[in-house]
């Protein structure tokens, strides 16, 4: 036990602590600012606990290696930033259809392309959902505090194991690089979900057994023989041309997430109960929003904050309900308008929706948000 239980950690260092806490035993990655400290930290930590760290030749190979690590039964992680996240999309889609648990951290920086490596951004919201082609499930988590990066990394592993699907953790450069005091939880303090064990003998095992909503995944190389492919497949994993099978294959990977949205959603609400004007925001921008909401309350304006920690699946229910009882929802985001489109869709005209957007590499300030809150409170 360290002398001080409380530590001043960087967001990316908290991610490392979360991965270790969740039982991550395999990391494959390619370094990229502003996510590199995650790779750095795990290269030190994993070998000490019998895990494996490997720096691959690029981002595509990294996610492919992490998929392999996961298939072999190890909780696996890869971390990157925008340009690298673009490259990982091929593997992400593969992990969706082959139903392979995996956690991908994307510390968002300015884009497109190599953009602004050391500046913050929240412009990968839509990429997290639609970056890989085809209809596919998406789970993306959005921590805003250093402590939350730890807990949400643990939750990402839990969800990926529970639903046998890749889970993305999205946070911006500000939170990735900033330091604040956090407490490393004791073992048992946070829930850790491990992969469901296969109970049947190898000759009765099917990796895509349709009798299960989420079929258990047997670790590759333990006597359970099966095929893994990115093609639509039968229950044994081999490719199929049967339209009924293809349909069922595509629908089941969506359904297993869609049916459990309520368990995957997680929102924080700040003084929202009696609010006239609401702010919908994630990450570092939500911290500015929190500041602005408190300042608005001090000025006698009934403002509140809805802060999703799960951005995909999008928190439809919460936004729909909110839109019915506020005058306006303000959506500050470090991009030119991504979440605001989803908020508009959910609001369906029930209230005004206004975005605040910024792409100059600087954060959206509390003053910027307060100004728009005041405008709508009139």
């Amino acid at each position: 036990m360290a002398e001080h239980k409380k530590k001043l950690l960087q967001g990316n260092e908290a991610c490392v602590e979360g991965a270790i806490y969740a039982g991550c035993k395999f990391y494959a990655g390619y370094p990229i600012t502003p996510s590199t400290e995650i790779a750095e930290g795990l290269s030190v930590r994993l070998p000490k606990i019998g895990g494996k760290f490997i720096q691959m030749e690029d981002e595509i190979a990294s996610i492919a290696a992490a998929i392999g690590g996961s298939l072999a039964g190890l909780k696996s992680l890869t971390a990157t930033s925008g340009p690298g996240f673009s490259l990982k999309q091929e593997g992400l889609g593969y992990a969706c259809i082959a139903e392979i648990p995996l956690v991908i951290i994307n510390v968002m920086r300015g884009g497109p392309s190599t953009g602004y490596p050391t500046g913050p951004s929240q412009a990968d919201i839509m990429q997290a959902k639609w970056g890989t082609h085809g209809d596919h499930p998406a789970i993306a988590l959005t921590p805003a505090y250093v402590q939350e990066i730890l807990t949400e990394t643990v939750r990402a592993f839990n969800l990926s194991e529970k639903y046998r699907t890749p889970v993305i953790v999205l946070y911006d450069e500000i939170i990735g690089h900033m330091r604040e005091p956090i407490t490393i939880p004791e073992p048992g303090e946070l829930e850790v979900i491990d992969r469901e064990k296969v109970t049947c003998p190898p000759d009765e095992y099917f990796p895509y057994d349709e009798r299960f909503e989420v079929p258990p995944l047997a670790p590759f190389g333990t006597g359970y023989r099966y095929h893994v492919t990115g093609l639509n497949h039968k229950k044994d994993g081999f490719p199929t041309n049967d339209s009924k099978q293809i349909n069922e294959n595509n629908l089941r990977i969506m359904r297993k997430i869609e049916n459990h949205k309520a368990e995957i959603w997680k929102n924080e609400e700040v003084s929202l109960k009696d609010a006239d004007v609401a702010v919908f925001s994630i990450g570092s921008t939500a911290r500015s929003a929190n500041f602005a909401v408190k300042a608005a309350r001090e000025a006698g304006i009934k403002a509140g904050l809805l802060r999703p920690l799960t951005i995909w699946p999008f928190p439809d229910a919460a936004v729909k309900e909110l839109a019915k009882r506020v005058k306006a929802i303000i959506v500050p985001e470090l991009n030119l308008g991504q979440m605001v489109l989803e908020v508009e869709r959910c609001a369906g005209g029930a209230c005004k929706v206004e975005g605040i957007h910024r792409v100059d590499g600087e954060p959206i300030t509390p003053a910027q948000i307060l100004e728009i809150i005041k405008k709508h409170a009139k």
Partner: protein
Amino acid sequence: MSARYELRFSGSGGQGMILAGIIMAEAAAIYGDKNAVQSQSYGPESRGGASKAEVIISTQPIDYPKATAIDCMLAMTQEACSKYHYDIKPGGILLIDSNEVKDVPKGHFKTISFPIIETARKELGKTIVANIISLGMIAELTGIVPHEAVEKAVLARVPAAFVELNKKAVQIGFQSAKGLK
């Protein structure tokens, strides 16, 4: 809004400004009884270019992690001083290295000039501890964090072989600032 005390350490990449910020935040939040967040801004270069670290200290939870109205700013280079002094609040403090910053900005803040890097070279033979001297000076000038907490935080961050050097550096910082207030 609860009181926020805002510090900015600025200089050139490689001068240890971010480390100074980290140590100040640790002094306040780990070795002291306050809350603190530290953030930074730097360019894609690994050396050179203006670099800054910001530390917000409060007794309350801290939402916005960046500086809005600075109570005390350190500038170790002219470039950093010219680029970053605008957010110092009226009545705030600007601490500059007197050999580096010749074009001293004007404003409703108090400017304190001291040959920080030269002192590190003359007294300790190592300019690398200039950031630790400046940390000691800021602790003395602002009184926001107790000396003992700053010293503990400095010593916890340095390798064993450099403990004595850094202990001296932080003490030189405390002493140098005493006559300048």
